[in-house]
C-alpha cells in the first residue's frame, strides 16, 4: 500500500514532466523589462512608446540603460503586440512604473488605454498615471532626467515623495479607475511638462489636470492643486508660504506636519451647504526678514494671516471648480451620499448643477507647534 503511494507520486511527477510545455516559464534575462510607457493619439491610431530598463551585462556594476521602443496600433494591445514584431522581445509589464498619457488621448480614447492596463494580468494597478502637458507624452518619455538613468524611475521617485511637496497629486491606476467609475466621473491627474535646464530638457511634475468622462477639462496650477488636495484631505505634508506678514518683505514658510480636513454637509432650510474644516499643525521653517514672528504677538499675527491666506486659496479653488469646471472634483458628492443618503437620493440626478451655487463654508484651524531649531529670526543690527 505504501509503495503504491510512492508510485503515485512518481507517476504524478512523470506525467507532469511529460506535460511540461514550460508554459509560463521564462528566463529572467530574456525579459524586456518595461519601466514605463506613454500613449499618444495620432489620428485614428494610438502611438505607444515603451521605456525598457536594459541591465548592462558586466561585472556587477549594475548600470541600467534605457531603451525606447515605439509602435502604433489601432488599439493599445495591438500596439503592444506590434513591439514583438519589431524587436522580437516580449515586453514584461509587471515592473512598469508610470503610464504617461498625451493630451490628445482625452478625446474619447482614454477608456481604451486604461482598460488594457487594468485588464491585463501582467500590468499592475498601482502604476502611476500622468498627463503630459504641452508636449507629446513620448517626448517626455524620451527626455533625459538628471539623477536617474530612466525617466520612469525619476518620475516614480518624484511621485513617491509627493507628500513632501504636495504640488501635484499622486494617482495610481486603480485610483483613477475608481474615480472615473464612481458617481462623479471626475478625476485629477498629475501633469508633467518639460523644462529647459542647463541646455537639457528634464521632466517636471507640477499641478494637475481635471478630467471628467474622458474629457480633459483644464489644468490647475501647483498652488491650486495644493488647495484641492487640502479639500480632498489628501494633503499629507509640504509647504505653505504666508506672504506679507506684518511687513511687505516678510514671507514666512510653514512646513505642514499634520493636516486633517473634515467636510460636513449641512442641510438647513431646504438648502444643502458644505462646511469644510481644516486642522493644520505646522512648524515655522523659514522667515525671510528679521521680523520676529516667534514671540507671542508676532505669532498671533502670523496665525491670523496664515488662516486668512489658506482660506483664500481654498475658496479660490472651490470657486474654480464650481464656476469653471462645473464638476465635483472636490469629492463633496460622496460625502453627501455617505452622511445624508436620503438627501443624496434627491439631488443625485442633477448634482453638478446643484453644486454650482452651493454655499461652501471654509474654516481653518492653524496650530504652529514650533520653529524648528532656532528660537529667533536672524537679526541684523541696524
Amino acid at each position, binding site marked *: 500500500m505504501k509503495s503504491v*503511494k510512492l508510485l*503515485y507520486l512518481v507517476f*504524478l511527477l512523470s506525467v*507532469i514532466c511529460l*506535460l511540461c510545455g514550460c*508554459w*509560463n516559464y521564462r528566463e529572467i534575462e530574456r525579459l524586456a523589462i518595461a519601466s514605463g510607457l506613454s500613449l499618444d493619439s495620432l489620428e485614428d491610431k494610438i502611438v505607444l512608446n515603451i521605456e525598457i530598463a536594459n541591465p548592462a551585462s558586466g561585472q556587477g556594476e549594475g548600470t541600467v540603460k534605457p531603451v525606447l521602443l515605439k509602435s502604433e496600433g489601432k488599439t493599445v494591445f495591438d500596439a503592444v503586440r506590434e513591439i514583438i514584431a519589431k524587436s522580437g522581445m516580449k515586453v514584461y509589464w509587471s515592473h512598469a512604473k508610470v503610464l504617461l498619457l498625451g493630451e490628445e488621448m482625452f478625446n474619447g480614447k482614454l477608456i481604451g488605454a486604461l482598460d488594457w492596463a487594468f485588464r491585463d*494580468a501582467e500590468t*499592475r*494597478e*498601482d502604476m502611476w498615471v500622468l498627463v503630459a502637458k504641452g508636449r507629446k507624452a513620448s517626448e517626455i518619455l524620451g527626455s533625459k532626467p538628471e539623477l536617474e538613468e530612466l525617466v520612469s524611475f525619476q518620475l516614480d521617485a518624484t511621485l*513617491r515623495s509627493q507628500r513632501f511637496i504636495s504640488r501635484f497629486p499622486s494617482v495610481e491606476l*486603480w485610483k483613477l*479607475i*475608481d474615480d472615473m*467609475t*464612481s458617481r462623479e466621473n471626475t478625476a485629477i491627474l498629475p501633469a508633467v511638462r518639460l523644462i529647459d535646464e542647463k541646455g537639457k530638457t528634464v521632466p517636471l511634475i507640477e499641478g494637475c489636470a481635471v478630467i471628467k468622462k474622458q474629457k480633459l477639462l483644464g489644468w490647475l496650477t501647483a498652488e491650486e492643486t495644493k488647495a484641492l488636495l487640502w479639500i480632498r484631505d489628501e494633503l499629507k505634508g509640504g509647504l505653505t508660504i504666508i506672504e506679507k506678514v506684518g511687513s511687505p518683505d516678510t514671507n514666512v514658510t510653514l512646513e505642514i506636519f499634520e493636516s486633517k480636513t473634515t467636510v460636513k454637509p449641512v442641510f438647513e432650510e431646504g438648502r444643502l451647504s458644505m462646511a469644510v474644516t481644516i486642522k493644520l499643525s505646522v512648524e515655522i521653517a523659514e522667515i525671510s526678514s528679521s521680523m520676529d514672528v516667534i514671540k507671542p504677538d508676532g505669532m498671533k499675527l502670523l496665525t491670523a494671516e496664515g488662516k486668512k491666506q489658506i482660506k483664500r486659496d481654498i475658496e479660490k479653488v472651490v470657486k474654480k471648480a464650481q464656476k469653471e469646471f462645473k464638476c465635483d472634483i472636490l469629492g463633496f458628492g*460622496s460625502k453627501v*451620499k*455617505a*452622511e445624508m*443618503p436620503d438627501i*443624496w437620493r434627491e439631488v443625485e440626478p442633477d448634482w453638478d448643477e446643484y453644486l454650482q451655487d452651493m454655499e461652501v463654508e471654509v474654516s481653518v484651524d492653524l496650530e504652529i507647534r514650533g520653529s524648528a531649531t532656532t528660537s529667533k529670526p536672524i537679526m541684523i543690527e541696524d
Partner: protein
Amino acid sequence: MVEVSKETINDKQALIMVTIFIMGSTLIMGVGGVAKQDMWLAIIAAIASAIPVVLMYARILSTYPGKDLYDILQIVFGKVVGKIVCILYAWFAFHLGALVLRNYGEFIKTAALPETPMLVSMLFLGGLALWAVKAGIEVIGRWSEFFIFILIGFILIIGFLSIPLMKPQNLLPVLYEGVVPVLHGTLAALSFPFAETVVFTLVFSSLQTRESPNKVLVYGILLGGLIVVYAALRNVMVLGANYISMLYFPSYHAVSRINVGNFLQRLEISVVVVFTIAGFVKISVCLLAACTGIAKVFSLENHRQIATPIALLMVTLAYIVYKNIMEMMEWAFKYWSSYALPFQVFLPAIILLAVEIKSRRQKTSGKPPAKQ
C-alpha cells in the same frame, strides 16, 4: 503494523476543518456582492440564519452517533428511497468539489499563469485531494490542525498591513438601497458557503461525543464566518464597493494594494497560499463525501479503493462544467442558490422530521434508540 480500529478525529480538528471549509473559496471569490457596501451585513445575517440550519444537521447526526448521513438515510427511509437520496447527496458533494476545483483553476489561470492550461493546476490539486482521501479523514484533520496556524498567521499579517489602506467611509451609507439587496446577499451567502457545511454530515461519522456535532458545526460556522466577515469588511474598506463590482477576485486586488515602505509589497501570493490551503481542505472533504457516498450506495467496505476514478471524474467535471470564467460567475450568481438550497435546507428538514418520528416511535415501542 498497528491497526487503527476506527478513524476518529477530535472535536478541535473537526472544528478547524469546518472553519477552513467555510473559508475555502469564499475568501477569494467574495460573497454577498449584491449587497454592495452592506455585504458584511448580509454575511452576518447569513451566519445568523445558518446556525439553525447547522443545528438541524447536528440534531440528525447526534440522534445516530457513529453514523453518517448516508447510513441515517438508509435507516430512516429504507434501502431503496434511502439510496436514491444518498446518490443525490453524493452527487451534490461531488459537484461542489468540482466547482471549487474549477474556481481554483480559474483563479490561477486569471491571476498568475495565463499560459498554463487550467487542467494542470486542477490535476495537481485533485491529485493532492485524492492522496488526502486515501490517507483518511484523520490525516486531513491533523493536516488542517497544523495549517490553520499558517492560515490565521497570513490573515492576521495581511489584516494588520492593510489597516492603513482602509477607509471606513467606504462602508457608508448603510442600507442605501434598502433591505432587499441585503436579503439577496444573505441568501447567496447562506448557500455559499455556510450551508455547504451539509457536506460534513456526510463524513463526520465518528466524532467524540453526542454533543460534538453541535459544538463543531456551530463554532466552526462562527469562526469561519468571522473570518469571512473580516475579509468582506477589509475588501470594502480598501477597495470600495464600486471597484469590487468590477473584479472577479477582490481579495487578490485588496492585498496587492499593500505597500509598506516600498519593501513589503506585492503580497498577492499570500492570497494564493490561503486559497490553496483552504481550497484543498474543501475539495478533499467533498471528494471524501462523494467516495463514501458511492461506497455506501453500493455497500462497499472501503471507500478508498474507488477514490481514484472518482477524483479523475471530479477533475473532468471541473474542466467541462463551464466554458469560461464569465459563465462560472453567472452560474454562481444566478443558479447556485436555487440549486443548493434543497440539499442544504429542505432535504435536511425532511430528514430531521423522519428521524424524529422514527426515534419517537422506537422509544414508545420500548426499544432504545438506535445505537451503533
